[in-house]
């Protein structure tokens, strides 16, 4: 009986200490929006659903050839790329900061250009 009481007290102590331990967790990502303006949806919806928006858009554009969709990676980086690095990646980068915090792999930018304003050089005779 005494043992059980001690165990209960110990368990309660752990529960009480838990919030104090939580203080030591990783710092929240500090996001800076370089080009603030009107996003395509409120921040709460973007945080929760941006991956779904982009996934459905990518299939419509890639497979059906629908252009000019509201959700678009190129539109994302036009507002969210860092002014110092030009990119949404790297330390403090808009995409990477949150994805590192949430430990979610970010592979869009393996193929898509993560820098805003990246231009191909162009060849004589090819009109833009």
């Amino acid at each position, binding site marked *: 009986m005494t043992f059980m009481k001690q165990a209960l007290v110990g368990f309660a102590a752990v529960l009480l200490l838990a919030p104090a331990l939580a203080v030591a967790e990783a710092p929240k990502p500090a996001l800076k929006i370089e080009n603030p303006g009107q996003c395509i949806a409120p921040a709460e919806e973007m945080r929760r659903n941006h991956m779904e928006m982009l996934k459905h858009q*990518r299939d419509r554009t890639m497979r059906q050839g629908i252009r000019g969709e509201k959700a678009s990676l190129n539109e994302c980086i036009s507002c969210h790329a860092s002014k110092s690095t030009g990119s949404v990646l790297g330390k403090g980068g808009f995409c990477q900061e949150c994805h590192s915090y949430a430990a979610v792999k970010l592979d869009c930018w393996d*193929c898509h250009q993560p820098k805003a304003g990246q231009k191909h050089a162009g060849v004589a005779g090819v009109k833009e």
Partner: protein
Amino acid sequence: MNDPQDRIDNQSRRSFVGTAAAVGAGLGVAALAPGLHLIEVSQAGTARSPGEAASNTVRWGMLIDTTKCASGCDACVKACNTENGINETIKDARQGSQWIRKIELKDPKNGREHSLPMMCQHCANPPCVDVCPTGASMKRADGIVLVDRHICIGCRYCMMACPYKARSFVHQPLTEQNPEVPRGIGCVESCTFCVHRVDKGQMPACVEACPEGAMTFGDLNDPASAIAQRLAREPSTQVRADLKLNLGVRYQGI
């Protein structure tokens, strides 16, 4: 064009589209009655409006006149590389990109030499699409054969299946992509007919860059297009026509 079935299909469709287009000539639409539109006849050089999907009333194709193609000229290859951001250094030349390449041919019997660009032939019945285990290799409604890199697992089965050696594999991480042409490590890729330009109503980069004007691009289904008119009047060849793949790219002079 050499396949009788293909010719019949094309002729019946052309005569139908031709009649329809005559009714709606100038408007770019086929009208059954005033205000009632049956199909839209797309013209090369016209951008699709935002939100509009690619349509199977269009079939993009290319006609290459090899008699005009100069030996040693690689303007089309350079234009393709620039437009599509192909600028990485390849350690092993055998692994280089195959979006478009120049081929020099010589007939050993009479010594006649000529040169031609070879790329994805945008087959109507593409073997790469047949073999793809994930559905990444696909043909868009308007006949452009593409790789959906989102679901490509890099197995390279399509590279084996392609009779034209038109596909290549990206072996290294890339950073200098054109924002409109995503491409990256672990995926197979090939000529896209510059789909991002075509969707804006522009010509593929190689066609614009060719100093000899040897390449004609347009809608094979539109009898008013320059390419369809030339194909109707002039002889042309499909490479490996015996495979009956019904190619989007046709050659003259080979």
